[in-house]
């Protein structure tokens, strides 16, 4: 089994996740797509898979805390409503 098949598959899945980040309006959906993207660079190098997993876990915890804080302040999960820093 050629390693290129795995690489092409991970590229495909990464692209699906990237498209999801652009398309979705819901904060949680965007987080799910980011998780999808983080998963897909892992096919090579087993030690690095560990580090990517750890960073993904930390990112998920902080991101979900931000989501909860955002929902508490704004009462919505739409990213377009969180535009306080947009000039």
């Amino acid at each position, binding site marked *: 089994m050629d390693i290129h098949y795995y690489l092409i598959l991970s590229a495909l899945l990464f692209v699906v996740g990237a498209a999801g980040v652009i398309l979705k309006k819901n904060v*949680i959906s965007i987080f799910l797509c980011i998780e999808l993207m983080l998963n897909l660079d892992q096919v090579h190098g087993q030690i690095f898979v560990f580090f990517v997993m750890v960073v993904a876990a930390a990112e998920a915890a902080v991101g979900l805390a931000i989501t909860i804080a955002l929902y508490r302040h704004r009462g919505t999960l739409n990213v377009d409503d969180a535009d306080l820093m947009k000039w």
Partner: protein
Amino acid sequence: METWFFFILGGTALLAAINVVAQSRVFYSALSLILCLVALSGLYLLLEAPFIAAVQIIVYAGAIMVLFLLVIMLLDPFSAQLIRDKRKYLSYLGIILAAAVLIFLYRFLQTYEPTMAPKTSTPVMGGVGSPGNLGRVLFSEYLLPFEMTSVLILIAIIGAVVLARRRP
């Protein structure tokens, strides 16, 4: 046989990933992502990395996705489901951008040679993916990154607690 397993698992992962993006309800999206992660752990098994496959299921499909589902159910699921985008052109833009990235990545990956991958200098005993060998490499060659990730996790824990705290 291995090729068949690859195409079955890879196809499942790809369809589940597309469903994550296409689904309008966040909850189903998360469940679909779990399916994608399980299929990927099957691919790790094909790549002779049984320990990574187990960690993938325990940490990703177990811990992280349970956290996601908990937050989805904690926040109002009905307001989350009703968010729709009025601007249709944005979705076409997203698909075009994704195709462009895919073409770029494909040309890059075609020239990739597995011999160029970084190699560890620690001698391999009992298979590259065996837990013992992985632990030996992790605690000798990658000790500094390992300790740094524990600091990173500590920072993330404190940050999550501070961010999600109810203001008095």
